[in-house]
Each structure stands twice: as C-alpha cells, then as structure tokens.
C-alpha cells in the first residue's frame, strides 16, 4: 500500500511539474468546449432554398420576396412539380424547401388561418434547425406586417417536416458529444504517454528490476489521471451549463458516475497504447490521429450514425464515446434514469474490463 501511494504521489509530481502536460490537461478541454460550442452554433449564410408555390397569389409572392431579400437564404428557383423537391435536396444541395398550398391568401383572408410547409434537410440537424428558425422569423415578420395594416387576427401556422432525420437528434445535443470527445482524447493521450515515457527515460528498466507488480504499475499510473479527469469533468459540466446553457434534466450523480466510467475506459485505452508502443511520439500519434477521427466520426454528435453505411454503423459500436454519448444525452436532455441506459452502461463496463485485461497482458515484464 505504501508502495502504491508513493507511486501515485510520484505521478502527481510528474504532472504538476510539467507545464506542457498541465496546460494540455486543463487548457485543452476549455478550448475545445468554447471552440466547438461556438463553432457549432454559428449562423448559416446563403443557404440554398427552393420555393414551390401552388398559390401564386399576393401573400405567397410577398413572402417569397422577403425570403429573397434575406441574406441567410439564396433562392435558387421556383419549382413546378412536387417531385422536384426530392431531387433538389439530393442533387442540388438545397437546404430548405418552402411549399405554399393552393388558395393560400384566400385561406388567410377567410379562414383566418393558412399553412406553409417547410421541408428541411435534417441530415445536418444544426443547420436545419437554424434555417427553420430563420424561416419562421420571416413568416412571423410578414404576419406582423399584416396585423399592422389590417388589424385582423390573422394567423399562419408553419408546419415543419424534417427529412432524413425526423426526430432532429442532435439539435443542441452537441454538448454531450463534446464531453465524450474531450474526456476520451485527454484521458487517452495522458495515459498513453505515461508508461512509454518511463520506457524512453530508462526508468522502466529500474522499475522492472524491483519487486514491483505490473498490476500496481498500471493502476497507480491510471489513478492520478482519473482524479485529474474528474476535476476536468467538473470544469466541463460547469462550462456547459453556464456558458452553453446545457440543461441537466436527469440525475447529476448518475451523469458523474457514467462519466467516471468513460474516463476509466479511456484510461484503459491509453494504457494499452502505452504498453504496445516504444516511443512517446508514437504513443501521441496513435492517440491523437488514431483516436480523434474515429471519436469525431463515430460518436454521432457531428454526423448522424443512422446515415452511415451499415459497415460503418457496425464499426461505431467499438467506439466507447458512442455509448457514452447516448447515455449522456439520455440523462441530460431526456432526464432518464439508469433503467433506460443500463445496456449502454454494460457495454462500457465490458469494454473497460477487456481493455484493462489486454493492457495487463501486454505489459512486458522484460525489455523485449
């Protein structure tokens, strides 16, 4: 036990005396949260839209003019056929289609109620929802104009339909995704370097020629980074709730526990990398290049997994952050409890145990 504690203390010395590590450990998450947070909520400009006008009356034309005047939109053409909508989305990179039903103005005038259909490309949920909001604003604007001129309680309802991704998953849910990304990257990177550094410095040679148990080496390497990552998690959660207005509808305790599970899983990945590589550079490359892309691609917060080909969807199952993303979303946004996410939790636990076992197995008790 004394052995273990003194090893853990030594690891803390390493972290706190190395400015670069410290900066990476605490600076990177903050930078990433801010960067991703604001990059992903950026407004969209010059989005291509098409208008399909059955009505061709004064009201529909005025609204069309308003769309044309708005710098967020770029009206590419007016369609004559309903079938063209689908091909416009698929072939011409159109982001939004606006459909005026026949007798639009008549309905507005006599029934005091008219409908406009807005069809958005939901495969890019953030853009789609942003555009939807812009479109709503334009129509509301027109409605206000009408009210002022005629003092009549007209109302226009917009009916929204999201193609390809009807639930619009990921509207503001990028925060759990970034949490998964940041925690994975930091934890993997930190631990990946830790054991390999001892090999490079030659200290591993002395450690091996001692009564030290490989299991203890691995656990005492992981523990300091686990504690530091929990601090990191707190920072991330505070930033997400205050700066990015992220709600936490479910149990905070459960969220922290699940995050701790992801951290342990990521630490195990790092330890495995550390055990199979020979230099710090190789370990860093594997954990940065080898981890970053799969995490961004297959977590599901940037690119919906449902849109991917089957083989890639299957591959995404081995990315731990994917499961964490589902868990975190369920807790934070839907307010669900453990009953809803026990399967994902079990998958994460299984991965962690397997990875820890592998890294223990790969730990070399000799130099070759």
């Amino acid at each position, binding site marked *: 036990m004394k052995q273990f504690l003194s090893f853990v203390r030594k690891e803390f*010395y390493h972290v706190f005396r190395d400015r670069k590590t410290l900066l990476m450990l605490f600076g990177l998450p903050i930078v990433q949260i801010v960067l991703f947070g604001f990059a992903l909520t950026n407004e969209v400009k010059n989005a291509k839209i098409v208008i399909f006008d059955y009505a061709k009356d004064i009201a529909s034309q005025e609204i069309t003019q308003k769309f044309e005047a708005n710098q967020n939109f770029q009206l590419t053409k007016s369609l004559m056929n309903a079938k063209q909508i689908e091909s416009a989305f698929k072939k011409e990179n159109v982001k939004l289609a606006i459909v005026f039903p026949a007798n639009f103005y008549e309905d507005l005038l006599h029934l005091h109620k008219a409908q406009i259909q807005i069809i958005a490309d939901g495969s890019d949920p953030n853009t789609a929802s942003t555009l939807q909001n812009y479109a709503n604003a334009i129509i509301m604007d027109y409605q206000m104009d009408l009210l002022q001129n005629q003092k009549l309680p007209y109302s226009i309802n917009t009916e929204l339909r999201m193609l390809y991704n009807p639930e619009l998953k990921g509207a503001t849910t990028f925060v759990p995704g970034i949490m998964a990304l940041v925690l994975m990257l930091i934890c993997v990177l930190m631990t990946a370097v830790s054991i390999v550094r001892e090999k490079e410095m030659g200290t591993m040679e002395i450690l091996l020629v001692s009564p030290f148990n490989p299991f203890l080496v691995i656990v005492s390497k992981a523990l300091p980074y686990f504690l530091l990552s929990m601090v990191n998690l707190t920072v991330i959660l505070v930033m997400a709730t205050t700066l990015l207005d992220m709600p936490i509808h479910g149990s905070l305790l459960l969220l922290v526990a699940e995050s701790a599970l992801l951290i342990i899983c990521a630490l195990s990945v790092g330890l495995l990398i550390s055990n199979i590589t020979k230099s710090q550079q190789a370990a860093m490359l594997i954990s940065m290049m080898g981890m970053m892309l799969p995490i961004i691609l297959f977590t599901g917060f940037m690119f919906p997994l449902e849109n991917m080909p089957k083989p890639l969807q299957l591959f995404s199952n081995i990315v731990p952050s994917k499961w964490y993303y589902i868990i975190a979303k369920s807790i934070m946004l839907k307010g669900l409890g453990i009953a809803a996410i026990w399967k994902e939790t079990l998958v994460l636990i299984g991965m962690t145990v397997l990875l820890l076992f592998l890294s223990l197995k790969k730990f070399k008790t000799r130099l070759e």
Partner: protein
Amino acid sequence: MNMVEVVDVVKTYNKGSLTAVDQVNFSVKKGELFGLIGPDGAGKTTIFRILTTLLLPNQGSASVAGLDVVKDYKQIRKMVGYMPGKFSLYQDLTVEENLNFFASVFNTSIAENYDLIKDIYVQIEPFKDRRAGKLSGGMKQKLALCCALIHKPEILFLDEPTTGVDVVSRKEFWDMLGRLKDQGITILVSTPYMDEATLCERIALIQNGKIMSVETPDEIIKQYPDPLFAIKASNMGKLLIDLRNNPYIKTCNAFGEFHHITFNNLSDSSMEILVKSLENQNHKEIEINPITPNIEDCFINLMN
C-alpha cells in the same frame, strides 16, 4: 559459493543476425568486486541485462545467487541492485524524492538502510532539494548508486557507472565501491576504461561478445608474452609508421606520450640496433625504456 554463474550464454538480436554475446562463461564469487572490461559494443550491457532478468538468453544458462535468471526472475528482482548505464532516475523529481520513491518501491525506507548509503549520501545531501536532471554527471551517478543500494541488495550490478564522469568523481566512486565490498556486497561492474580494471579483484576482458580472459588484473599482466618498451621521439607520427615497418619490431601501438613496442627475437643489443636504425631515418631525441604492461596492452595483445 558463486553469486553469479554464467554458462555458455548466447544472445542474438534482430532474429539472430546480430550476435551480441557469444558463448560467454564466467562466475563471480560471493563478496567479490568483479569487472567486465571492454570497449563500447562489446556486449557488456547485454550481459548485465541478462543477469538482471531484463533479457532472455537465446542459449545457455545464468544464475544469480543460485536462482535461475529465467525461471526465478521474480526472486532475483527483489534482491539485486541495478544501476543501468544510462542515467535512469526521474529527472523531474528531486534527489530526496527519487531516493524516497525507490526506497518505498523496495518496501523499505531511507532511515532503515541509512548506514549503507551514508558515505555517499552525505555528498549529495546539500543538493537534496535539487531536481535530479539538474545535477552534475558525478552527482547523478552517486544518486543512482544510492538508489540502487537503498534496499541493501546482496549483489550490485553497475553498468558503466563512471562513463561521462570526471576523473576526481571517478576516483571517489571507486573508493565507494571498495567500501561497499568491505561490507560484504558482491559487485559486478562494467567499464570501458582500462585503467579502472586494476581496481577490481578479478576482471573479464570482453570484445565482440566474446570473453578473452577471466583473471585477476595482476595475473593478466603477468601473462603478457613479451617484454614491453616505451619509446618516444620528436616526430611521433612518423615514428609510429617507421616502427611498424621496422623488421625488428613485432608490435607497436600509440599510447599517449609514448609508443609501446615489443621486439622480434629480443636480445641485449636490440635497443641499440633499433635506435641506430631510427637515427638513420632522421628521428631525433629518441628515448626508450623497458616498462611493465598495463591492462590496455594486455587487451590489445589478446585482441590480435
């Protein structure tokens, strides 16, 4: 009882394409100060790593304190002190933190074995709050020795402990090894410096992975086959070439201020004949004296 026993050990790298250690045999007695002497790349570090259970031999067997280096590696690791050739302590930890850490790794404390390291530790104690990476070469080696000694090992493996250390610190270091030996610790030390060989009780001369001789330093010197002379003249570079082409000369090697030579068919008049022939080749201020060979002479002789 032999503390170290090495029998027919072979170690190859790169799937057998490079033989680092070739059929090596030697043994170290309990309480002995044993030196492995040889140039860089001779295979000294490989032998140390096999004995400290860090590498597996391809052939042959080796034991430390009667324990097999392959089968009983866990027990061996508890009882040996190892100081690798490259400085291998934590550079970002202070002197005291390093020592404390290695003490606790071996389940002991500085206080428990302080008498063993006291002589050495007092010299680095003024710098105990300094980071190990900021120490001078000699200080680093003293600290590394302290760390290797902290658990009171029965046998010490020191791989080139004086490489890159100044002359004064080297002398101090060897004095310390002498004192440790007096306390009954078996010490196996390697060095590329031939002059340090005489400080060992017994030495093994090693070259290209093969051991050429295992003897006491005196015995190795005694076994030198020919009388040896030191010679110098005003133009040493030309002298070396002329001597090597001289029919009277068997061997000639440059040794700093002098060249060391041996004669073919040595007789009482050999020296005079040589001086004359050299004077004919325009050499001036010729000075020649008989000398006793040193370890380096013996090493070069064995190499050829």
